[in-house]
């Protein structure tokens, strides 16, 4: 049974190499964790596509069930969930994130 929200999520995840599901927008983040995550990718000069889950409550409700990750932000790279704010920062510190993004 096709679910429009699931389809939409799948399309978003596949639309760009780096996709961030966040609260707010890059210009106006609505949560400290979302802001810190977008800042990290800006600092690395890595382009990302962001989806504002406050503006899209259906995605906010559905994505955690699909990704099996309860909180936001959620960071997807190459179609795979990498984790949340803490994980990408820890991976940045260890250099693993740069490797995953091929910028190391």
């Amino acid at each position: 049974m096709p679910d429009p929200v699931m389809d939409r999520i799948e399309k978003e995840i596949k639309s760009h190499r780096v996709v961030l599901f966040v609260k707010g927008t890059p210009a106006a983040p609505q949560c400290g964790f979302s802001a810190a995550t977008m800042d990290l990718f800006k600092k690395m000069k890595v382009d990302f596509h962001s989806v504002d889950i406050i503006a899209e409550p259906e995605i906010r409700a559905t994505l955690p069930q699909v990704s099996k990750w309860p909180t936001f932000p959620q960071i997807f790279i190459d179609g795979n969930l990498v984790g949340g704010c803490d994980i990408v920062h820890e991976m940045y510190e260890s250099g693993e994130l740069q490797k995953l993004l091929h910028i190391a």
Partner: protein
Amino acid sequence: MMRPEEVQRILENAFPGDWVSVEDMTGTGDHFEIVVTSSVFRGKSLLEQHRVVQAALAGEMDSRIHAVKIKTRVP
């Protein structure tokens, strides 16, 4: 809202015998910084390690806790 001791107790029950630290990041009882050192994490990716901690707190997330900062370590 929760006291850090309550969060600590939930995690100590979920990770018996392991080292758990909980700090109230904002003093408002809904943002916590959690560190868990457990052999349970061995061989798991960071993503999987965090999922184990999230699962332990699943009952409290959103309802009583707004956000957690998680750090996992393998002893």
